[in-house]
């Protein structure tokens, strides 16, 4: 399959001003040299703990946060080089689903207006067709057409998330970046929303970049999985090989923390010592070396590159 989107060496740094006149600048390296690609119709899961830069990666791709450096190639065009107008055209293909269904809908607008917004901004369809489309979209995500006249506060979290999904679908995108779309929802509702997203993927041939911190959700949902730590991808592989034979020590410890539905199952939990280092001042060499059980001398000085261990299994670790 073809590569739909390719991210090369993406860096997003946030400046922190110091001093009265804001002269001294330091940077939080939220995303530090991240590269991956998305094939058409697949789901790439991006996991990692809070603050590891997964959401920033998603936002950088859509230019919602201005990346510092790198290339984001969508269908042969570099999104980094596009101005506002050119970017608007691309936005029809790239949409986003947000984490918090309570803040992602404007409480002062009816659902109809929320769904009409994208079509109005892009000047698509006639008013009549737009009305039809709103109703179709609502039914597509499992709500009713009458719901169009209501306000967000009349809906539950799961329903609001469905509305958010409907909004993302309005422009018939090819790629959807789902930024922790279910982490704010109940477990029972999570399954519903995930199933809806999967149905829609089959129906419209969508490609997902699925950002999450819940490994079980990602396992259920993704075809390939990338693990992030402190703004870098440490391991990127097919779902099967990543879950069955994790290579990076960080991935191993993450997977060992996933609960297993078997009371007799005994497993060794790898408990990491210490905290995530401050991203303002990440450790030299491998970012993970401060907490790694198999840390070597080289890890402290040299940053490991992302190497292909097996076909479709990339790891950034000096062990291999």
């Amino acid at each position, binding site marked *: 399959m073809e590569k739909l989107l390719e991210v090369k060496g993406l860096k997003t740094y946030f400046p922190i001003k110091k001093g009265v006149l804001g002269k001294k600048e330091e940077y939080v390296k939220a995303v530090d040299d991240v590269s991956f690609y998305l094939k058409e119709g697949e789901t790439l899961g991006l996991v990692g703990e809070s603050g590891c830069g997964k959401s920033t990666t998603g936002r950088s791709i859509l230019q919602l946060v201005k990346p510092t450096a790198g290339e984001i190639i969508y269908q042969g065009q570099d999104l980094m080089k596009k101005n506002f107008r050119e970017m608007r055209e691309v936005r029809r293909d790239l949409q*986003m689903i947000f984490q918090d269904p309570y803040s*992602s809908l*404007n409480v*002062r607008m009816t659902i109809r207006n929320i769904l009409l*917004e*994208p079509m109005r901004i892009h000047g698509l369809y006639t008013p009549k067709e737009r009305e039809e489309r709103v109703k179709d979209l609502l039914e597509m995500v*499992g709500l*009713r057409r009458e719901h169009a006249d209501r306000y967000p506060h009349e809906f539950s979290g799961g329903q609001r998330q469905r509305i*958010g999904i409907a909004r993302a679908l309005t422009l018939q995108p090819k790629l959807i970046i789902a930024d922790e779309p279910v982490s704010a929802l109940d477990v029972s509702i999570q399954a519903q929303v995930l199933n*809806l997203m999967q149905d829609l993927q089959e129906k419209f041939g969508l490609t997902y970049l699925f950002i999450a911190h819940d490994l079980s959700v990602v396992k259920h949902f993704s075809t390939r999985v990338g693990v992030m730590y402190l703004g870098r991808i440490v391991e990127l592989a097919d779902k099967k090989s990543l879950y069955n034979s994790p290579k990076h020590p960080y991935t191993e410890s993450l997977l060992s923390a996933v609960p297993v539905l078997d009371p007799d199952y005994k497993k060794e939990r790898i408990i990491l010592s210490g905290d995530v280092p401050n991203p303002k001042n990440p450790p030299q060499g491998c970012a993970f070396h401060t907490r790694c059980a198999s840390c070597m001398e080289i890890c402290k000085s040299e940053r490991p590159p992302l190497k292909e261990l097996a076909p479709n299994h990339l790891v950034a670790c000096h062990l291999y």
Partner: protein
Amino acid sequence: MADMNIQVTQHTVPKKKAGPWAQTWRRFSRDKAALVGAVLLGIVILLAVLAPFLPLDDPNAVNLAKRLQPPGTDGHLLGTDELGRDMLSRLIWGGRISVSIGFFAVGIAVVFGTILGLIAGYFQKFFDTVIMRFMDILMAFPYVLLAISIIAALGPGLINTMIAVSVVGIPYYARIVRGSTLTFREMEFVMAERAIGASHFHIIFWHILPNCLPPLIVAVSLDVGWMILAASGMSFLGLGAQPPLAEWGVMLSEGRKFIRMAPHVSLLPGLALFCVVLAMNLIGDGLRDALDPKTKV
């Protein structure tokens, strides 16, 4: 599986409820104190609007034979002032000017304050620093002094008073709006708009501004009273409306000289001011309660 999803969600949405603005109105209309204020203000505005059509004496018709008549005199329900002008007529015509100064001054302040606050809060960085530091400078002046110095620069008069009083008000609105803008610009629905491709202008005016309105409406309703008082105060000091114009501040100032002989000449415009400001404050309090996000569903 998809069919099952649809089934689950269909039963959980309650019957149609009103939108946020309609809910606010419902809460407001249940607030008795606010309604009293609204009725009071309604009467004042009605009288002011209808002044030319009411059977009133000319507010500037001088009759020196009938100076300082007490209220209840024949033909002069509220008496006359030191030049024998009908008090009732002057009060109503004066209300026209005083109340409209209050609303216009707030209007000017709101428009400029909101625009500045939106720009500062949304674009931040350079704009924020420049605009808000300038607002800080304006706020650092004692407001009466600031108003007086603006009038001193522009010259006394009704329009200039209005401008002076509204300039004093601008920083307050800029701050309120900037504060709400800072909150809302970080919310995901703004991010969603940007992901769709909405322009900054569109986001500011169609998404952030409507969300900033509740605190703004409260501030406006509380400030109209304050602005009426401030404008009348300027007139009282001889900087605003000039005699013989019927304006409550001017009337107070002129009546002051006769306060022992004929207290009604200064008392009546004072009472009128008091009523209007009280009405505005009651409405403002009611609106604040009605718009309070904590009571929001």
